[in-house]
């Protein structure tokens, strides 16, 4: 299954809407789309509402994006994570690197360091 990626820019930042599966075949493409956006330095939201499956390689890609964003001082938020994807991310520890929307909002007041976040 393939992956479609659409960018949308608004005042607060950039939204990347992904549709399909993030696996070893598609994660390269996702990374290609995301890295330039990270480098732009604007807050980035990744909308995963229409993503049905994230494989091991896909999870690693998201973590790489997190590390790149951390390095660049950019806030990345994951949105619309399905129940199943959320469970897999939780069981394998990847979710630990991201925070829920509410927590991220609280964090941003407390700390200046940007965090990635997950929101439903």
């Amino acid at each position, binding site marked *: 299954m393939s992956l479609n990626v659409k960018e949308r820019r608004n005042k607060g930042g950039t939204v990347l809407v992904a549709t399909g599966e993030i*696996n070893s075949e598609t994660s390269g493409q996702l990374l290609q789309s995301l890295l330039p956006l990270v480098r732009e330095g604007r807050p980035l939201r990744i909308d995963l509402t229409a993503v049905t499956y994230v494989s*091991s390689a896909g*999870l*690693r890609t998201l*973590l790489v994006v997190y590390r*790149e964003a951390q390095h660049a001082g950019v806030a990345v938020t994951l949105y619309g994570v399905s129940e199943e994807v959320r*469970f897999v991310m939780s*069981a394998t*520890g990847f979710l630990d690197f991201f925070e829920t929307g509410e927590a991220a909002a609280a964090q941003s007041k407390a700390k200046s360091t940007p965090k990635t976040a997950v929101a439903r």
Partner: protein
Amino acid sequence: MSEARSEQVLRVDAYPTHEVGGYRVRAGKPFPFGANVVPGGVSFSVFSDQASSMTLVIFKRGESEPMAELEFPEEFRTGSVFAMTVFGLDHENIEYGYRADGPYDPVSGHRFDARQVLSDPYARLISGRDVWGVEPDRSRGYQYRSRVCLQDFDWGDDTPLRLPAEDLVVYETHVRGFTRHPSSQVTAPGTFAGLREKIPYLKELGVNCIELLPVFEFDESDNMRSNPETGEHLFDYWGYNTVSFFAPKAGYAATGRYGMQGDEFRTLIKDLHAAGIEVILDVVFNHTAEGNEQGPTISFKGLDNATYYMLTPEGYYFNFSGTGNTVNCNHPVVRNFVLDCLRHWVADYHIDGFRFDLAAILGRALDGTPLPNPPLLELLAFDPVLRHTKLIAEAWDAGGLYEVGNFPAYGRWAEWNGKYRDTVRSFLKGDPGVTGELATRIAGSPDLYSTRGTSASVNFITAHDGFTLADLVSYNDKHNEANGEGNNDGGNDNASWNCGAEGPTDDPEINRLRTRQMKNALAILMTSQGIPMLLSGDEVARTQQGNNNTYCQDNELSWFDWSQVDENAELLRFTREMIAFRGRHRELRSTSHPTGQVRESLGLPDISWHGERAWQPDWSAESRLLAVARCGTGDDDVVYVAMNSHWEAHDLELPALPHGRSWHLFADTGAEAPHDIRTPGGEPELENAGKYLIGPRSVVILVGRTPDPEL
């Protein structure tokens, strides 16, 4: 652009040099063995001493027929290692194996069969048994399918914890059994993720180390027996039948169906470490799932049978393990395999220690004779990566070798102390003539470990193999009918006592006595020198209905029933407080054996023995009462433990304490809850300073300290 991506190095070996079977390839690196992702491709490396040719077989994930069969060109062989890098593979979506061609000559030890696709012994991920209990499609030629994976888990700051061995309280449990019961209320019952949700329970209990029954990939469906009464198919629930030594069991992971068992297990370990809990793996290097001449060919048998197995001069399998074959552990190649495997679990999974199943086999020579200086055990003891890893031997095997007390230790190896178990059980049931040996065992078995210290002794009364604690006090005999072997399996030497009725009873007297006996066992275990090990569920009186060999019982006989946490809250509280008490009193955890030397600070010996009269222990054959006082250094409390396995009460004369100190009551198993035990530090002072009446079959624990001015 961050460091990671800007430093992509141009490598000459990232380009193919040959073409085999339509794939671009080049000679691979012989080391490390296994399948490793390299720039542009995957490097495959496999050893076989006698193979005349080797073929890499690649499958699209899940498909029965291979997508490619690539024979290793002769020039890709270094020594006896076949190594090849294949370019352009989607490593996440392939499975691979090998066909090894060579002589079929069982008398010479060779069993090559190029028709078979073999698992890679170094595979770090295995598919084929992805979800526990799903009946496999046995018509497929290749069952246990090697997969390629990245080892790039983000551990953060985590490392193995390196807790001092003497401070450990080990909790032996089963990944599936711990949370499979519906009462567990976890998101993914029976998995690594489920166990992770129960970390708060472990923390509250106070254990700081969990020892997991085998987690290397095994095939639960390889047991052919059924329950004779219900007809229910029996699984190989325990898993002492390894299929693949580098791969975590997929069926233990909620994400096993996605091939993410490695990350799920690592996440569990990381979180256990964050809670201050170490992880010890029960590892089975004495035999494999390939069985004997009749057994399946999975990997070793077809790759290099004569190297990996101990064979008789006629080419049959030695059976020191009682399961069909015996791994040739002291062959130089196999030694390195075991070392590579353990290094992998320490370096890539942050494992804190290993318990070696039937470890006496690891000290046998190639022909089976016991070695005085076994190279494998020495190698593991001194290896740089394993240097601070706990190494624990089950120091016997099924071939009659019993090495408790003289397992070759190199200053490093600890042992499951089977003699501790036997002695304490015998004392508890009221056998005569045991007090002398009991004293030796609770003092850390100096007769066995005089040069090795007390932490060479892993003390336990119950373990997965045998009765649970509740069954130890509820059954005189094993009841293994459900295993389908006519009650002939499992040990008969249980040293158990049912307290007056076999199995469950409504008799309140008997039930009260059973609870007391369980508390007695826990009190003795937690106040003994050596490393205590608790069997999971004993703290809540888990029963297996008298079955002392539940290796095949993947059901409520084995599973931890979480409703017992409330129902047996009294015993759970007792266990918690005993563990906390051990943590508070370092003299109970002293690494050196007591000598009887008088501590200058308090004028009392480090250890002293008492009977009904202070300073007068009764070592006679009919004695069933023993008291021990331990005195630490400096301001440490004095801890007095009286153990009475007699059916009558006795008046105890207590040893006098130095000025300013008095006896305080921590535990009396003869008292009704909540007066059976106190919170450590909150013990009330004894009213009658010099005396205490110990009830029938009871343990009393006193603390000699300065009175709390507020009380």
